[in-house]
C-alpha cells in the first residue's frame, strides 16, 4: 500500500517539526510517506460558497494525483485534512460543483472522489493499531499529564470528517495512552482556538485561548498536544503570560516515545 503524503504549506515553513517527525515515525512504523511530487496549497479554508470552483482546485489536483497512485492520501495538518476531506466529499456527491470542476480541469479520467483521505492519526489507529504502537514504544512518556487539544477542523462537521465522535472524541487520548502518558480529558478540548481571527481580531482570539487553557488547567493538564499548526500558534502566541503551558505536536511526542527524537526536534 502506498501512503501518498500531502504536507501542506505550513509544514514546509513554520511547522517543520510536525513534518519531519511524522516522516521519521511513519518510516519506523512501516508506512513510509510518499510526498506527492507536485502539490499546491489546499486553499487553507474550505470555501463556504457551494459554487466556488477555483478555491477547490488545489485540493482536487492533490486528490486526483493520489487516486492515480494507489488511491490513499495522508494529511497531518488539521486544516489541510479538513479541506481535502470536504472537497473530496463534494467531488463524490455534490452536483453541479463536481461537474464544473471536472469540466474545468478536463482530466483524462474525471475525478469522482475515489481517493481515501486519511489523517496520520487514522493510520495509527486503523492500520498500525494502538496495541502494536504501544509495543513499539521504547521511551514511554510515563507520568506526563497531557491534555489533547482537538480544535474543530479535525472533527467537524462530524458526518463528513467521520474521524471520531465530534463531541466525545477519544483518538488523541488513545494515542497518548499508547505512548504511556496520562491523558487529561477537559471540557474545552474540542472548542475553536480562534483560528484566523489571530489576524483580524486578536483580542477575541486571546479570550478563546484563555478559556481553553483555563479548562485544561482545571482538568489537571500540565502540557497540551495538538495536530494543527494554527492551533499550536494560537495556544502559544495568544496565551496570557500566566497561562502559558508547553504545546507540542503529536508526532513530536510520538518520535520521542519511539526513541527517534534528536535534540533539535522537540521544541
Amino acid at each position, binding site marked *: 500500500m502506498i501512503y501518498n503524503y500531502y504536507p501542506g504549506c505550513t509544514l514546509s515553513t513554520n511547522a517543520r517539526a510536525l513534518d519531519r517527525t511524522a516522516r521519521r515515525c511513519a518510516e519506523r512504523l512501516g508506512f513510509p510517506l510518499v510526498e506527492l511530487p507536485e502539490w499546491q496549497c489546499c486553499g487553507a479554508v474550505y470555501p463556504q460558497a457551494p459554487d466556488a470552483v477555483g478555491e477547490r482546485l488545489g485540493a482536487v489536483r492533490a486528490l486526483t494525483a493520489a487516486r492515480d497512485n494507489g488511491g490513499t492520501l495522508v494529511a497531518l495538518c488539521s486544516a489541510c485534512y479538513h479541506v481535502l476531506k470536504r472537497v473530496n466529499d463534494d467531488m463524490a456527491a455534490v452536483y453541479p460543483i463536481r461537474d464544473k470542476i471536472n469540466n474545468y480541469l478536463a482530466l483524462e479520467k474525471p475525478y469522482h472522489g475515489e481517493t481515501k483521505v486519511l489523517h496520520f492519526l487514522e493510520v495509527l489507529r486503523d492500520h498500525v493499531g494502538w496495541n502494536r504502537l504501544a509495543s513499539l514504544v521504547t521511551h514511554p512518556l510515563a507520568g506526563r499529564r497531557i491534555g489533547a487539544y482537538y480544535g474543530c477542523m479535525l472533527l467537524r*462537521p*462530524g*458526518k463528513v470528517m467521520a474521524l471520531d*465522535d465530534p*463531541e*466525545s472524541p477519544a483518538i488523541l487520548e488513545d494515542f497518548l495512552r499508547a505512548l504511556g502518558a496520562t491523558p487529561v480529558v477537559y*471540557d*474545552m478540548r474540542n*472548542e475553536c482556538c480562534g483560528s484566523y481571527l489571530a489576524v483580524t481580531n486578536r483580542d477575541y482570539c486571546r479570550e478563546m485561548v484563555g478559556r481553553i487553557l483555563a*479548562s485544561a488547567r*482545571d*482538568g*489537571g493538564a500540565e502540557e497540551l498536544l495538538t495536530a494543527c499548526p494554527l492551533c499550536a500558534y494560537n495556544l502559544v502566541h495568544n496565551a496570557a503570560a500566566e497561562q502559558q503551558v508547553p504545546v507540542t505536536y503529536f508526532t513530536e511526542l510520538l518520535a520521542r516515545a519511539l526513541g527517534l527524537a534528536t535534540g533539535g526536534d522537540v521544541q
Partner: protein
Amino acid sequence: MQKIGVFVCWCGSNIAATVDVARVVAAAQGIPGVAFAADYRYMCSEQGQQLIADAVRQYGLNRIVVCSCSPRMHEKTFRTCAERCGVNPYQVEIANIREQCAWILKDREQATQKAVALLKAAVAKVQLDTPLQPGESAVVKRALVLGGGIAGIETALDIADAGYPVDIVEKEPSIGGKMAQLDKTFPTLDCSACILTPKMVDAAQHPNIRIFTYSEVEAVRGFVGQFEADIRKKARSVKADICSGCGICTTKCPSRQAGSEFDAGLRKRGAIYIPFAQAIPKVPVIDRAHCLRFQTGKCGVCSLVCPNKAIDYTQQDEIVTEQYGAIVLATGFDLLDLQHFGDLGWGRSKDIITSLQLERLTNAGGPTEGHLVCPSTGRQPKQVVIVSCVGSRDTSGRGKTYCSKICCMYNAKHAMYIREKYPDTDVTVFYIDVRTPGKGFDEFQRRAVEEYGVHYIRGLVGKVDVHRDGTLHLTASDLNSGRQLEMEPDLIVLAAAVTASPDARKVAGLVTASIDNDGFYVEAHPKLRPVESPTAGVFLSGMCQGPKDIPETVSQAGAAAVKAIGLLSKDKLLTNPCTAWCNETVCSGCRSCVQVCPYGAIEAVEKTVVTLEGKKEQRSVAVVNEALCQGCGACTVACPSGAMDLKGFSNQEIMAEVDALCW
C-alpha cells in the same frame, strides 16, 4: 374467448399531469384481446367502478386491467368490483402507473411511454390468469399481546372484556412498563400510579387474561387466524406459586452491584429483587449475572431467609407453546443512548440526568422518596436547566430526525413539579420550538410560563463544562435576543429522544412485520389503517408504532383491540388462493423447496407419480400444504427442475410480462 377491459385512471392530476392517459387508452385499443379501453378521473370512486361494471356487461369482459396506483392501495377495491360484476377477482391485474411512473418521472413523453409499457406487461399477464377460488381457514379465538405496558394492558383488557382469552407476554419481571416509572401525567397532573396500578390489577384478575412476565416470545409460526407461538418463561429462580411476596429476600441480598432498572440507575438493587412495590406479579426474580450464588457458588442468603422456602436455584427456563388467532405488538419505546452528547456533559457528572431520572427523583416511591436533590451532593438544586430536543429533530446523525412529540409537554410538567414544591428553585427550559397540540395541552404549557414563572428560552445549549470541583458551567444561545448566555446550574435535565424498543427489530422478524429505518413498526396504511401491520392478523398498539403520549397510546390500544376482536369474532377466514403447487411429473424430490420455505408449508412425501414417459413410479415428491403456504414464491425460485409454480404468478405469466416489456 378472452375479452380484456383496460381502465386507465387519472388519479386527479396525480397521473394525468404526467402521463398522457388518452395515448395509453389508444395503445390499449391496439393490443389483441383488448375489447374495451377507457379512462376516468377517479377509477376507484363509485362512478369509476360503475364504468367498469357497465363495460363488463356491455362488452362481455372476462379479464380486467386497471392502470392506476400501487396494488397495495387499491388491488382489493378492483378485485371486489370485478367479483360483483361476475369476473373472477384473480383475473384482474393492476399496472402501477402512479408510484412507479407518474410520481417518479418528470418528462411527459417518457412517462407516457413507460405507462404504455407497464400496460402491455399487465395485459400479457392477465391473458394467462386462471380463475382462482379462495379456500377457508379456521380462527383460533385467542389473542397474544407482546408487551405489558399501558398499551398492552389496555389492548388486553378490551379484548378480554369482549369475551376472548388473551395472553400478555412481558420481558420484564413485572407488567406496568414505562408509565409505572412516571410521577404524574400531563395535562391533569394526576398521579401515574393511581391510574395505572388499578389497570394492572384488573389485567391480573381478569378471568380471560393470562400474564407471562419475565418471558419472551421466541418463535412464531403460522398465519392470520392460526398463529403458534413459543414463549420462553425465563427462570425466576423463585417458585411463584408459593412465594408470598414478603420481600425479605430482597432486603437481605448482599449483592448491591446492579443499578435498578426501575429507578433509571439512580439506586442499586439486590441481585434478587422486585422491581417496584406495586409490581405484578409481586414475586422476586434473581438476576443471575449479579447473584453471588450463581457467580461464585457461595452465598444462599435468600434461600435461608425465605419463610416459604420459595427460592429455587435449579429452576430452568420453560417453553410454553400456544395457538393464537391475532397478535398485537405493544413493545413500547426506549430513550436514546446519549453517549454521543459529550458536549452536554453526558456521562461526566451525576447532576446531568435524563427526564426519566427526574421522574424517579420526584416520585414518592423513588430513591429519594420524592425529594428533588442533586445526585452528587444530596442537596436541593437552586437552579435547574431543562434541555429540549436532545437527539430529537437532529440532523447531525447522532440522534433522530423526528420530533419525539411528548417532551415539550413533560418538560413543562417537570418545570411545574419543581416550581410547585420548591418555589425558591429557578427553572429554565431551552427549546427549539414549543410543540403542544392536544386537548388542554397548550393551556398547560402556558400555565408553566405564566403561573409558575418558568423561564423559557428559545435556543439550545451549546456546551456544558464539568469543572473538577463538580460545578457545571453552561453556554447557550438566546435566539430571541441574539445573546450568548452563561449559567451555572446545579442540575441539568436532558429530554432525550424517544426511540423504538431495541427488541422491536427482533419481534418484527418473528412475525414478519415491517419496521421503518428508526425501528418503529410500519402501519398497513398511515392514514386509513393505522393500527394494523401490513402482515395480516398483526396489530399495533402504542409507542411501538411511533412516539405518542398516554392518551393517544390508550386510544390506539383500544383501536388495535377492536381490530383484533373483529378478527377473532369470525369463524372462518378466506385464504389467499395464490399458493404454490408442485408439478409432480418433473419434481425430482431434491427437497430444495422444503429447505427454503419460511412457513414450513412443504414436505417431501413418498408417493406414486406418473413420469414423463407415462410410467408409474414410486418416489419422493414435494407436497404443498395450501393452508400454510403464504404465496411468497421462494420455492419457485429455488426449484432446480421448474416443478414448483405459484398460482396467480406462474413462471409462464412472469415471463410473459418480461417479454411484453422487452419487445
